[in-house]
């Protein structure tokens, strides 16, 4: 176990010695991930919510998630680089494509499977379609919508690491460059990016818990 433990001791020493570099790389990582996730939300949320509201497009929602799962991250990154060349957009586009399926599919099913009685009641009160969606269906389906966003965030942070092979910045740059940073640097960046993904996951889980309707005890 000796040398193995040493690798991790060295990794933590690397973190202590290079806090500034790790923070800069973390910033780049979050910038790329955040931009991609933001764009994906802008595209996928309205489509998913609206289709769910209309109870149409089951085939689209289901196949988007099936096809999305079959798209490997390295392939998307490589296709992005091949088609768009090195820049900001090649990796961002790849990450957006990766993030859309979980967001769209969860948004669709969150609204589609909403409590029909609540929706009927809202309609009976004279709410318009948009009001029903925003005031009844969305609040009820929000936890499931947020669960999709959490999965997308985990995917995006993981794949932003691989984006380093296509000119992307971020923590992946350290991981794919053992020649410069040594095994201790590679392991340090790996632990760091794992902590980042885990933190994002915890934050989104906490938001989901806050958004979940309180359980009212049935008398």
């Amino acid at each position, binding site marked *: 176990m000796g*040398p*193995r433990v040493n*690798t*991790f001791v060295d990794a933590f020493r690397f973190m202590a010695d290079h806090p500034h570099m790790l923070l800069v790389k973390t910033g780049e990582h979050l910038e790329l991930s955040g931009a991609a996730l933001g764009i994906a939300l802008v595209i996928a949320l309205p489509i998913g919510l609206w289709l769910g509201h209309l109870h149409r497009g089951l085939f689209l929602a289901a196949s988007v998630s*099936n*096809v999305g*799962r*079959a*798209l*490997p*991250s*390295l*392939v998307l990154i*490589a*296709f992005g*680089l*091949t088609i768009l060349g*090195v820049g900001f957009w090649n990796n961002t586009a790849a990450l957006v494509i990766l993030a859309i399926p979980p967001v769209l599919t969860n948004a669709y099913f969150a609204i589609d499977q909403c409590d029909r009685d609540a929706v009927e009641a809202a309609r009976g009160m004279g709410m318009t379609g948009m009001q029903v969606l925003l005031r009844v269906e969305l609040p009820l389906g929000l936890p499931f919508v947020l669960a999709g966003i959490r999965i997308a965030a*985990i995917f995006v*942070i*993981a*794949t932003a*690491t*691989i984006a*380093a*092979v*296509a*000119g992307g910045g971020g923590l*992946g*740059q350290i*991981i*794919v*460059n053992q020649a410069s940073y040594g*095994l201790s640097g*590679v*392991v340090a*960046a*790996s*632990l760091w*990016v*794992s902590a980042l*993904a*885990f933190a994002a*996951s915890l934050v989104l889980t906490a938001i989901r818990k806050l958004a979940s309707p309180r359980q009212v005890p049935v008398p």
Partner: protein
Amino acid sequence: MTVAGGPVIPNFGTGSSCEVNNGWFCTDWVREHWGDTLQPALFQHIELVAIAVGIGFVVAVALALAGFRYRLLDPPIGVFSDFLYTIPSLALFQILIPFTGISVTTVEIALVSYTLLILYRNMSVGLRAVPAEVVEAARGAGYTRMQTFVHVEAPLALPAILTGLRVATVSTVSIATIAPFVIAKGLGQPIYDALGQDVFKTEIFTAGGMVIALALVLDGLLVAVQRMLTPWVRV
């Protein structure tokens, strides 16, 4: 192995003019390198996936049975598999290397870890969803606990289990593309090589297309298995 580390003057070999000019898709390159590059990579990929899903399935069955029998175990197993799933694949490979070295074992441990969450969740949810009345009825009819499990609970959970197997298989095909960051195996390798050689387009599109096709074909095969084993469920 960054792209920027490649030679300054692009060198796409001495093949056809399409290859030399790095055209969008050179069929002659594919024909020439099917035997020595693409087909071996495809077979290696299938092997990586088969081993990972096979081991993952066995481990998940064991965990699901333990979690089903001893309810207390269910939350910690769920949290642990969720935790494994959150670790970025590339990072998990690197964290494992100090323990298992630059080897297939490293890759398989990571791949198995990712299948666990999907398979465990589906098995556990499927078993939990069996209606209590049905189990009661079986017990009332004189079935032993074991018989109830084998003849009632397991068959009713089968659709969820098979769906989990499908999702896990497709995801593993996808994640196995990252294997070349550790060992030169699978369809990720030609992609990785092409990225290093000033982004050789044909190789990237062919190998990338093959991974996606493999995922979709395996998904289709598993849908067929699903229809055969659980004809009462519409897939």
